[in-house]
């Protein structure tokens, strides 16, 4: 009888619960693994870690829903006017473009290619990473000049390095990667010490992390060979827009005209930048405070350890250790799934560049750094 019933029982189907039991077990295992897995923390990119202000996205979206089949305003008049108003300069002094980097590239091309035999560009170093390559590409020779002890450009050393072949002096304030800043007086001193043919290229991509009173763009009314490059990629959190602008002296109209993108900037980028230029002070103070708080917090947590970084401004840290090389630091942090930029990219094997994010990220970074010490 049992055999008889057994024959028919083999035709009983598995219930849906029985069918999915193996799938559920696999899902549970994957979930448990995902919870146990530490998420990657990317502190290598200098872009701001939060999305831009919602109104910036709204402005860009609104522009996209209008007549994008037509060409945008090639002169970006509304944007330029908003930027000129923001910095208290003339409209003709402002050139909107595809980011500070692109404008720097165009400037170097204009200054160096136009000089025939190229020329030297003194660069406060370490500075913005791609700059030496851009100088090479423009036919010039980059001359690195070490920073001061405070992590800011050493204007006296820059002035001393500038010779008759120097076409430009490039510096960054707040400096990427150290965060060091220079003031208006230092810039005036540099301008006064340079040969008359040399331009000052001030990369101020991180300047929105400084208080509005520290804005050096207004010096373009006073210094005849100062070009200031600003970006929307950092404090405005608009890196994906590729948006920035240059401000130059009123008498450099011909050079400024050569920096502008040939056919202008896309309509969404113009709209987003225009809103940000006019209303940036709604959110920039919070981000300034956020970056300063995280910087101070990490400094306090690392007090008493052999980790050090220059006091400075903005979310970028140039961290070093007495016991570990930059490569070891980066590799050690990578084992904890924290990714930073090794100083080797700047030709420096003692530092790493770290971009600060929120409190949780800072705490995780601090804990990871402290863990690195005993094991090394």
């Amino acid at each position: 009888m049992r055999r008889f019933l057994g024959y028919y029982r083999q035709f009983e189907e598995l219930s849906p619960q029985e069918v999915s039991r193996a799938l559920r077990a696999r899902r549970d295992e994957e979930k448990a693994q995902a919870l146990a897995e530490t998420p990657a923390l990317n502190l290598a990119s200098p872009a701001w870690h939060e999305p831009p202000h919602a109104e910036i996205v709204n402005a860009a979206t609104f522009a996209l829903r209008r007549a994008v089949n037509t060409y945008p305003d090639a002169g970006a008049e509304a944007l330029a006017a908003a930027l000129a108003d923001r910095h208290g300069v003339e409209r003709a002094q402002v050139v909107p473009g595809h980011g500070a980097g692109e404008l720097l590239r165009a400037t170097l091309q204009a200054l160096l290619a136009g000089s025939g035999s190229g020329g030297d560009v003194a660069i406060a170093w370490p500075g913005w990473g791609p700059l030496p390559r851009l100088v090479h590409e423009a036919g010039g020779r980059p001359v690195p000049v070490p920073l001061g002890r405070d992590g800011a450009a050493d204007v006296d050393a820059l002035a001393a390095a500038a010779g008759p072949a120097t076409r430009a002096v490039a510096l960054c304030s707040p400096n990427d990667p150290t965060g060091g800043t220079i003031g208006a007086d230092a810039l005036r001193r540099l301008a006064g010490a340079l040969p008359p043919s040399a331009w000052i290229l001030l990369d101020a991509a991180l300047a929105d992390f400084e208080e509005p009173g520290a804005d050096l763009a207004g010096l373009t009314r006073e210094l005849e060979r100062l070009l200031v490059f600003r970006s929307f990629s950092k404090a405005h959190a608009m890196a994906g827009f590729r948006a920035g602008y240059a401000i130059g002296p009123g008498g450099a109209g011909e050079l400024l005209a050569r920096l502008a993108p040939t056919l202008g900037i896309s309509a969404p980028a113009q709209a987003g930048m225009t809103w940000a230029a006019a209303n940036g002070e709604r959110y920039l103070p919070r981000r300034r405070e956020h970056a300063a708080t995280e910087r101070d917090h990490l400094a306090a947590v690392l007090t008493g350890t052999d980790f050090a970084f220059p006091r400075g401004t903005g979310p970028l840290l140039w961290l070093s250790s007495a016991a570990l090389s930059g490569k070891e630091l980066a590799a050690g942090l990578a084992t904890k799934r924290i990714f930073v930029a090794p100083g080797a990219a700047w030709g420096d094997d003692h530092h790493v560049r770290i971009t600060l994010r929120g409190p949780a990220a800072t705490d995780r970074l601090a804990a990871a750094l402290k863990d690195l010490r005993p094991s090394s």
Partner: protein
Amino acid sequence: MPRNDPTDTGGLFIGRRPGTAPLRYKEDPARGGEGRRRTDATLAAAVLVLEALVCLTLWGPQPVAWLWVGSQVDYHADSITLALAVTFLGMVATLMITLGIATRLDRVWRILRRAAGHEQREGVLPRIFAVTAIVALVLFSLWFVLIEGPAPSLAPR
């Protein structure tokens, strides 16, 4: 044609449609020979008839039986309320029991059909239930309208 074929779903791949999952057994069944399968097919047909008969009892014999029980309760207890309650609750109780029996018969029918070589995914109970209800309604209507007539035969003429 598979029942989840996009030509059967307005051209859209919508994943598996409900009730189209393939049958899954604990292990591949060892099927009997041709004779056994024929026997199983015959048994399945017999179970189907039995299932239909069980369902048919719901629409005639059971209500009549419970009405008779109710009349007895009314006669002995002299309470129409109690008679109605007993009739109603009794009908519901036997309905549940009958459905339980029919469900088990349906499962046996499915297994016999599979043993007979068919990929029988679902049972046939809902359809039998609906068909027997229609048959009972038609038979009742024929009896009520044509045979018995609208006036009760026991009423005084």
